[in-house]
């Protein structure tokens, strides 16, 4: 840990601490893990390198997650839209998923993660994909057509307040606020 501390300049470290919810230890650990994903020659410039998506997905915390692709997509700021992540994207992600992030932030990002088509609302297709992710892709755990229809109908009945057939951010946040353990389950710690 002491070794990696010297690789992040002190002011950058301070900046990261201010801009994210992460503590110094957590940032340093994140740096260590991030540089391990890079090939050896690029480890010196870890702060400015980009890691391709396939590498990110080898992290044990993300490997088994059904939402892994969405997470990479949401937090990636790559111009080429290849979902590669820089170190700052990585820190962003860890910050949102950390213990100290507020429920607001978490629900906002959860909304973006669940919004599969990136149109700003959760419509029926998004909800269907969400349910499929939650129940798994196996044959025995897929819901039938009728069951899926009914489930989505129920969800929309309960959470779509303005009855426009979609769930927007505020409605989503309203729904999330009713469940007390959302914050503790929307967490990834290295």
């Amino acid at each position, binding site marked *: 840990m002491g070794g990696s501390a010297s690789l992040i300049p002190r002011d950058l470290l301070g900046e990261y601490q201010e801009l994210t919810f992460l503590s110094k230890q957590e940032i340093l650990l994140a740096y260590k893990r991030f540089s391990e994903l890079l090939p050896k020659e690029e480890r010196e410039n870890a702060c400015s390198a980009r890691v391709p998506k396939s590498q990110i997905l080898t992290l*044990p*915390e993300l*490997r*088994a*997650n*059904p*939402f892994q692709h969405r997470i990479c997509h949401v937090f990636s700021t790559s111009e080429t839209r290849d979902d590669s992540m820089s170190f700052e994207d990585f820190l962003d992600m860890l910050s949102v*998923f950390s213990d100290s992030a507020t429920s*607001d*932030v978490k629900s*906002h990002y*959860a909304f973006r993660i*669940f919004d599969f088509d*990136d*149109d*700003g*609302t959760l419509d029926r297709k998004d909800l269907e994909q*969400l*349910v499929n992710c*939650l*129940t*798994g892709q*196996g044959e*025995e*755990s*897929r*819901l039938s057509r009728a*069951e899926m229809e*009914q*489930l989505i109908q*129920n*969800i*929309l009945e*309960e*959470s779509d*307040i*303005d*009855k*426009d057939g979609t769930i*927007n*951010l*505020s409605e*989503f946040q309203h*729904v*999330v606020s*009713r*469940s007390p*353990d*959302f914050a503790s*389950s*929307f*967490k*990834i*710690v290295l």
Partner: protein
Amino acid sequence: MSYYHNEAFENPDYHFSETLEIDRRGSSQRNPFSHQSPYDSSLHGSYGDHRGREQNYPVAIPMASLGPGSDYQDLPSTSPYGNFTENLSFEPEPELTYSPHSTFHLLDYPYTHGTSSGSEDSFIRRRNRRPPDEIFMTSSSMSETDPVCSEEEDLIGSLASMSTKERIKAIQKMPETMRKKREIRNKVLKEITKKANHRPSCCTQCLQGAAVGYFQRTVLYYGFYTNATISKIENGPSYNMQLAYIFTVGIYFVICFLILLFSMAKFFSRNFINPQELSVNASKLLCTWDFNITNDKAVKLKQKNLCTQIKEGLTEVNKEVLNFSAMERTIRIGVHLIAWVASLGVAVAACAGVYFLSINNLELFMKGYRNDLESQAAMLVLPVVVSLLNTLIPFFFSWLGHLEKFQTPGQHIYVTITRNIMLKMSIVGILCYYWLNIVATSESQCWETLVGQDIYRLVLVDFIFCLLGSFFGEFFGQDIYRLVLVDFIFCLLGSFFGEFLRRIIGTTVCLNLGLPEFDIGRNVLDLIYAQTLTWIGILFSPLLPGIQMIAFFIVFFVKKVSLMRNCQPPRKVWRTSQMMTSFIFLLFCPSFLGVLSVIGVTVWRLKPSEGCGPFRGLPSMYASVAEWIQVLENYTVSKWVVWIYHNLITSELFFFILSSFVLIVTYLYWQIIQGRKTMTKLLRQQINNAGKDKMLLLKKLRVQQRASRSSSALGGRGQQRSSSSYHPSRQPAQEVPDYLERAFDRNQNTSYNEVRWSKCRNVESGA
């Protein structure tokens, strides 16, 4: 030293017969008679010559060849049987060396030693065999010549003690006339039948009888317990067996009662007081995913769980209301009625069968009380039949359930469970009636032990059937059972009619091919049945709960393995927590309460048997407690116990007051529950209304905005509306960067406030 290890060896006779041979033991003792014919009766006198034989038997039975070449090796004069064990497999040929009379001894003797020494011996020439080595026993009265009649008696006695094959061989080898042999044989058979009535003649029979009888005489059964008061030291604290027995059983039941009560209360509260938790909630779904899970298997498991939960919730919500015409309704009611009549009829038939079989059982038992294996096997017929009925009839009931079309799957499940419980409890009821009314008043010696044995057999066979059922049912598929049953039924109904119906049934029954489902209901009912038997049996066979615990352990692990390997999750989704409540309630209501009443009748009304058990001699089992209270009255120290007994336990007024108090409290709590349910409903309604209010206000807001926008577009008032930054509730397609969403929300609120404020101003200005 024991010179014979088998009674069959005993043949005092052959020493005295004229054909007896002399033992030529030891080369130094080369008998001058060694060359004589073995049939020479003058050999009699040579008995005394034997030396080195400190055995008790005066006559050494010569096993060695008597031929001239009979070389006895110099045997160490150890136990005569010392060398036998080396060559036990050697089949002794009896007529090897000595008289036919003595042949039967040699049948059992291994020859350990030496080769046939005198092949040139005339005797040996007859059969080329190894000489026997040692002496075989004789009786102690060997040294003299006994009269022939007693010899014959002894011969017959020893013949009778042999097994049939050996006896036949021995008699065949006797050098007697046919008539003589026939006489001997008849006498031997007479002797055998006489003996069989006295004692088990053969060792194996002994062992069997001992084994069965042993179990009867252990602590396993009621009959074993003494009715004495045990005290180790004089005038020390004593252990009153009667009180111990009855109080142990009583306290056990009280503990079971309390455990059942608390379980019921827990499941009841979980199930009925929080019904809304079970429905699929949007919030539950959107927020349930735990991002902490990193293990692949755990992820899959969680996904599966979620799927089951969703499906459960959906089936609960999915109650379709079907409207039937009058005609269809009557048909449906008719079908239901027929199904119920059929199931009741089958249950009654099963009970009648069990009743008559058990009466038969008792007759069989009373007729000949024998401890051999045959009668024991015959006693097993009743438990096997009961277990068969309990295994096969539920399949019939579930098939009936498929025929009737129920409105919801829940109804189907409940009806099937009701029928199964009815069947099982009525069978148990008939058995109890049989035990308490018929066995208890029969002439048998120790009826409690009989009942205990019956229950023990039932439990054991039930356990075996459970394992078998798991093996066949889940390992090989329940379809086999169903198919077999359906086949059987339609064979009975006749081929023409049967073919038609079979085709129809085949499409409904045989749909679920593939992996068998683990039928939770059937398995739980099996457990309840086994537990009922155990509870009934505890009074008659006190160690039964321990045995049942072991059985349950084994069944649990077998079923777990079978479930993991063979079964798919049930297609009908089970509302598990609600089912748990029903099952615990079933365990309590027909099962535990029924057992309590049976035990109550036994303890209070039935007369314990005279000859066995801790309550012998008393008019009823409860009388021991009454006696004890009487004894306690004499001591001032324990007057409070007597007071409690007289005023609380045996007084009816106390129980009346207690019951009414409990009823009142129950009623109060029930009313509280009703009130809470109503309140929950009202609160939900309130939340719905709040949502609708919000919607209404948003609509009004939008209208206002549109109005203001249009008015501002007309270049009306110059009031700056932040309409560009005022987003309607539908978010625009582009993504707003990260933390500006909060700013957006704030904007929304502020613009809303602005609108309201401006409206007020308008109103004011307008007013």
